[in-house]
């Protein structure tokens, strides 16, 4: 079976005044289709850099990555994916409906499909009543939900989310969890980074933990976390080892 995400020996170096900083250091990771994979790591571990390489924002220094079999350096790799950034900055001068139409056009969808999917997504995210209001007037939580809706407009096979529940109230978090579970139920893949360990525990089939640009743990929750230990303890231990006892 073809992997949804295949990362192989991926390195990214950033130039700094002191020379070069390795944001990712020979990172390898495989995410199989139909799973929800939580991507964890402390601040500065390389989570966002990994997502940015996968989305083509950053070219890797070395190594390779594919999304649904396509090289991430080609725009075609992004045809069957949806992405929600950590802080979804959206065009404030558009309405939610216009934003979804714009997103749909970028995926080459026809107008009838865009209309149909927009209606469903606006209802699912609880924005149907505000669909024609300017996004500039939305609250942070509303923007987050709209960001999720625009990520789903093309009915993606792979959903990449960066802190998807940040800024959401508990009820909206439940909605997001439900949406993610629905995606898994129809065989779609979700890959998301988060600091919310309880969130990860409740929705993920697998977790991958990264520290200092390297993968330190990867597997199912049951396979990784020893009986009697919490994910939080396991996460801290994993990250602390990599940091040489800093934490």
């Amino acid at each position, binding site marked *: 079976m073809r992997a949804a995400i295949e990362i192989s020996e991926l390195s990214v170096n*950033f130039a700094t005044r002191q020379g070069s900083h390795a*944001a990712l250091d020979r990172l390898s990771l495989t995410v199989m289709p139909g799973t929800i994979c939580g991507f964890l790591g402390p*601040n*500065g*571990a*390389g989570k*966002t*850099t990994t997502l*940015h390489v996968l*989305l*083509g*924002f*950053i*070219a890797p220094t070395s190594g390779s990555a594919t999304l649904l079999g396509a090289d991430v350096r080609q*725009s*075609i*790799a*992004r*045809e069957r*994916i949806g*992405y*929600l*950034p*950590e*802080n*979804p*900055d*959206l*065009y404030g*001068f*558009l309405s939610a409906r*216009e934003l979804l139409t*714009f*997103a749909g*056009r*970028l*995926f*080459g969808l026809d107008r009838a499909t865009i209309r149909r999917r927009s209606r469903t997504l606006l209802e699912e995210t609880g924005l149907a009543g505000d669909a024609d209001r300017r996004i500039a007037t939305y609250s942070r939580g509303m923007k987050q939900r709209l*960001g999720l809706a*625009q*990520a789903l407009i093309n009915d993606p096979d792979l959903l*990449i989310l960066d802190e998807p529940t940040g800024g959401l109230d508990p009820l909206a978090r439940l909605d997001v969890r439900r949406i993610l579970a629905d995606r898994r139920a129809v065989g779609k893949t979700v890959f998301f980074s988060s600091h919310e360990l309880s969130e990860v525990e409740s929705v993920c089939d697998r977790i991958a933990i990264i520290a200092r640009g390297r993968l330190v743990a990867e597997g199912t929750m049951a396979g990784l976390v020893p009986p009697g230990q919490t994910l939080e303890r396991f996460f801290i231990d994993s990250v602390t080892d990599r940091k040489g006892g800093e934490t």
Partner: protein
Amino acid sequence: MIRVMAIARLVLLEMIRRRDVYALMIVLAALLLALLGLNVFGLGGTAGYVKEMGFLAAGLLGWSFAIQTGARQLPREEQTGTLFPLLAKPVSRWELVLGKWLGAWLASCMALAAFALVVLAAVACKGGRTDLITLLQAYALQITALAAVTALAICFSTRMHSDASSTLAYLVTGTAFLLTPRIPHLLTVATPGAREALLALYYLLPHAEWFDLRRRLVHDWGPAPWSVFALVVVYGALWTVAALLAAWAALRRKRFDRGAA
């Protein structure tokens, strides 16, 4: 092409909703009203004077609008973070450049048309008339120039902040408009060293003066020869394509890494 059109439409929508163009139209209308009301050097009453000053002001406002609109597209997308969901779609960097340019250019064309209509209304108030063919030629050359100006502004903005790129675009195009037509004269009085530099500038800078048919409009000289008109359009198109290719080359491998670590 769907993606390019979608991005261009977004730029147009933003222009309409930002209302910059309305503010500029009010400035132009106020200027023309002043021209109509005042009798500067005893020329205030003539339609030719209103026409000359009006079209000059419309051209300058159109030029400024094109630079500002072109220069802010990419840096603002990056600064506000809207670029990230956009690039996460199957949009290539070339489609991004082309869409942004097309939108900024069409917005500038619409703004220039609106400015020209205000000027024509003012000229009509003074009982002046304007030859339609010359007017259309002048408009076509102006929007060809705006295509190149917008492309240059976008090109500069791939590596600079919007303020810096608009300043550079003003400098390059302003120098091209003011200096290049005078270079042949300056060559006759320049020292040998300066002559080389002037010649280099003459060939390097775009010839903005070739796109300006204002005098033909004001003095009713009639349209420019069609062969010359076509050559100038091709010249403008070449500048536009060159600037867009340079923009794409600069953007192709650019890292967008806000918040990454």
